[in-house]
């Protein structure tokens, strides 16, 4: 993983957290996207597919307006495979990965039209935090290149943006909270390097259940919504390093 990229993303996450308004947070996010040549993004809650008024759940519309108009007039939301997968999964994914899983004819039409509007590929970061409905931060462009190993930080960037923009209160990173154990730090260090629970169980020679149980404790201690979020908080508390 390229250190400059990592620190840039990490700095952006901190800046989003520190920003006083959601507009400021969105500017910072946009700034990061610009550096990677990504031009469009959307932050939205995900009502059920049949919801005619789904747009009320949009927290920030950074799509090209022609695309938004097209998407809406064609009723794409009901068939959008990105929305469908984001409701069901907690893991970030790339738009092109949807094609390998097989799309419905109508779902393929949504993706093909997006391509025509200059969005050949994209990243979806599904947001599933306690006490909020499903949501997604999605970023698109004619070309997406995610620097290797940065996906956890990109996920964290999106989660933090969502928290800021949605106005969900977050507890401050209080200093008196319980420190991580050596084992928890070791585990989180691997997560910070993009390893999954399965990978870590192999590396450490323990069961996946044990890894997941550690991760639960880590999330509780850090008041983090997921592992990516825990990584960022632990970095900030200097409990782990990249």
């Amino acid at each position, binding site marked *: 993983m390229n250190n400059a990229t990592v620190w840039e993303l990490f700095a952006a996450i901190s800046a989003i957290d520190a920003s006083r308004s959601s507009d400021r947070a969105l500017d910072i996010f946009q700034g990061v996207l610009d550096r990677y040549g990504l031009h469009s993004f959307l932050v939205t*809650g*995900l009502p059920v*597919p049949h919801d005619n008024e789904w747009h009320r759940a949009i927290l920030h519309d950074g799509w090209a307006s022609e695309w938004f108009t097209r998407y809406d007039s064609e009723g794409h939301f009901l068939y959008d495979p990105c929305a469908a997968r984001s409701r069901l999964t907690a893991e970030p994914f790339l738009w092109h990965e949807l094609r390998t899983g097989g799309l419905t004819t109508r779902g393929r039409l949504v993706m093909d039209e997006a391509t025509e509007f200059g969005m050949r590929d994209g990243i979806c970061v599904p947001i599933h935090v306690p*006490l909020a409905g499903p949501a997604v931060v999605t970023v698109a462009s004619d070309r997406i290149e995610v620097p290797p190993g940065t996906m956890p930080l990109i996920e964290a960037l999106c989660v933090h943006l969502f928290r800021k923009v949605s106005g969900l209160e977050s507890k401050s990173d209080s200093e008196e909270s319980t420190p991580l154990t050596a084992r928890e730090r070791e585990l989180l260090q691997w997560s910070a390097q993009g390893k999954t629970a399965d990978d870590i169980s192999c590396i450490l020679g323990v069961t996946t259940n044990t890894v997941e149980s550690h991760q639960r404790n880590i999330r509780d201690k850090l008041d983090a919504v997921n592992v990516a979020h825990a990584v960022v908080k632990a970095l900030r508390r200097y409990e782990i390093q990249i």
Partner: protein
Amino acid sequence: MVRIQVVTWANRKQHRLLLERYFRIRYDIYVKRRQWRAVARPINIEMDAFDTEHAVYLLALDSLGKIVGGSRLVPTLQPHLLGDVFPGLASAGPPRARDVFEWTRFFISPALRSRGGSSPIAGVVLCGVLEVARKLGIRQISVVCESFWPKRLRALGWSITELGDVLQHEDGDIIALLIDVTPEAITTTRRAYGIREPILADAAG
């Protein structure tokens, strides 16, 4: 002894843990048991687009504070299920008014459902819905429900209007109703379930 706890945006912080348990129970019921595909998700919390600051939750708690049933009321001037997702169920259009709320997510804890007959907890939640509605000045309640409900509610003495035809839906046949909130319906429901007094301890009348 089962009582109804009302949770709103205003008192949600006091009841944070209770609310979290409530959304987990909803996941258990709607996603795992009833397999509503539209609300499935990777964390065991079921929340939809209408769980907003406008929602009013009725939680039926037993003497140990365990959630045994519940319901949700959402103002029809705000986004709601009949208005946004199933407007076709109301042939003259979904009713929207300050004193009309929509009723959704009526459930009884699966462990307490009785075979064949109606669970006594159902009586508590049904009375609770009417009492809370009276207390909040709600005149009518709209609801999207399974098609067996009109018969069941009429048998309890409720005054209801069917807003449209039955729709065959992947999660079961559904219909939209408009319910009048009347003192008579409260009286007959209490009688049907052998409930002697108001469910809400602090309910006036």
